């Protein structure tokens, strides 16, 4: 192996090593841009769409929360942008008088056109369909949410 070849190999290797570092930084950069542009692109169409979409209501987006079981059966709450809290406390949106419910039991809030249910550390738990809600979970239409004896679901 001649000296020159080895010198070239050495320089090329260092260059490749640095290229790898720069590529890694590039991945991080796109990662940051990915999360930075996605709310921006999400926000852009949402802005003009929002005023128009509100009365129309996009297809597939729930508009009502209906109590389908328990003492409050038949109650309907119209959904807006505000989160809904469920519990025995007087300041809850849906006040349930139920020994099996906690005072601040669960919470429903809209996020990007979806409604998310979150258990607020209740004693007896919140169930989405059959599964216990352990972390904030999106709620599809017509899937029952159980809070104590009360059953609610989202409808159009």
């Amino acid at each position: 192996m001649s000296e020159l070849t080895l010198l070239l190999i050495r320089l090329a290797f260092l260059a490749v090593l640095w290229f790898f570092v720069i590529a890694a930084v590039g991945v991080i950069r796109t990662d940051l841009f990915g999360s930075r542009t996605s709310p921006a692109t999400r926000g852009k169409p949402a802005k003009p769409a929002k005023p128009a979409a509100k009365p129309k209501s996009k297809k597939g987006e729930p508009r009502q929360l209906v109590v389908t079981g328990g003492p409050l059966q038949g109650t309907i709450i119209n959904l807006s942008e505000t989160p809904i809290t469920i519990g025995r406390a007087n300041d809850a949106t849906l006040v349930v008088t139920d020994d099996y419910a906690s005072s601040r039991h669960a919470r429903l809030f809209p996020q990007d056109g979806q409604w998310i249910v979150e258990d607020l550390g209740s004693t007896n738990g919140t169930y989405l369909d059959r599964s216990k809600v352990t972390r904030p979970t999106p709620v599809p239409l017509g899937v029952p949410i159980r809070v104590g004896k009360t059953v609610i679901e989202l409808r159009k």
Partner: protein
Amino acid sequence: MSEVVATPVPMPAKRRAAQLFMLAGAVAIVMAAYANVGLAVDGAIPSGMLTYGLSLGGLMLIAYLVLAKFAPWADPLILPLVTLVNGLGLVMIYRLEVGGQEEASATNQIVMTGVGVVLFTVTLIVLRDHRALQRLTYTAGFIGLILLLSPLIPGLGREFFGARIWISIFGFSIQPSEFAKIALVVFFAGYLVAKRDVLALAGRRLLFIDLPRARDLGPVIITWVVAIGVLVLQRDLGSSLLLFGGFIVMLYIATQRTSWVLIGILLFVGGAFIAGQLFDHVGDRFEVWLNPSAPEFYDREVGGSYQLMQGMFGMGAGGILGTGLGQGYPQKIPLAYSDFIFAAVGEELGLTGLMALLLIYALIVERGLRTSIAARDPFSKLLAGGLSFVLAWQLFIIVGGVTNLIPLTGLVTPFMSQGGSALLANWILIALLVRMSDAARRPPPQAIQDEGLTQVFQR
């Protein structure tokens, strides 16, 4: 997860393609480095290149597939970066083996890398939710202390190079402090999640610093005593510095009080000073650090500066661009395959290569800290922050020691040095980081919105 979460809210992408690309790049660089060593030493591409390259590539492919299956949202960069560092360490060990350093064994190291990857995948598969570790807070602390003290048990502990930090089981030598490191970080994280408010808020203010209450100070004092005790009894300065620094930084992350950092530094300086006065071998380190080129230290058999100076000569010979892989004399540095691998790399790749290497480490740590920032529960914030810091701190201690910035203490360079225990422990550490980054980047859970008094943290 139940099938209800069919439509996740759009969030950061998985970046699997980027991960695979970077992983392939890392393996390719390692193979190129092998070829370079062979070309320089024998004038031909070494016969082992394909074996080593393919086994490393195969191992990483397994790690990648497991990661894609069990932690699909994990950070795309951690695995490729670690692969590159591990691979470069392998090449360097191979190079030292070729160069005639007898203890260096690349085959051994790649087997250990294999076991490390197995542990990595097992950790990812078994530990589906890192918060399970929170329940094991005190168990982890207990295991950590036992591991740390186990080399002192008569009959089990082994002493090499004047430090009693190995244990010997079934013919294998294990350095338990490497595993103790992880267990203790888990313990610190769990403990501090429970105690951080009382540590931050209760206490008196004296001059500029907030003094915590004595009973809250207890664990710090205990850790301090254990750290200094390990230092004294096992002659292991590195581990005690590592542990103590890790704990102080985790306290700082948890409470955001500068006073803890001040208290910590004062305690450690005080402890080290007293130890330096009382014990010769600690005092010697300081002397050697201040005067490495003095002939009386250079010629001394044990505890001298010969090794340190050889490493510095090597790095000096390397200069900016290095001598080139396989063209230097890194085998002249004693223990170049373990503690001094950084100096060996410095000789052959030069400052340019060392900077790239340090940047790669910095990126690994950055991804860990990023995980900590993005994490949703306080436990994983602390754990990810603590583990990343411990990795960075370990690197600082050994690189600082090798370059004579701080007194030299025996610690391995993470992922590069030959040594099974450290490699295995660090692969577990990376698995924990990957697991937490998966949880942090996974979309569904939403941030708790402002809604008055009630704040609920998930457990």
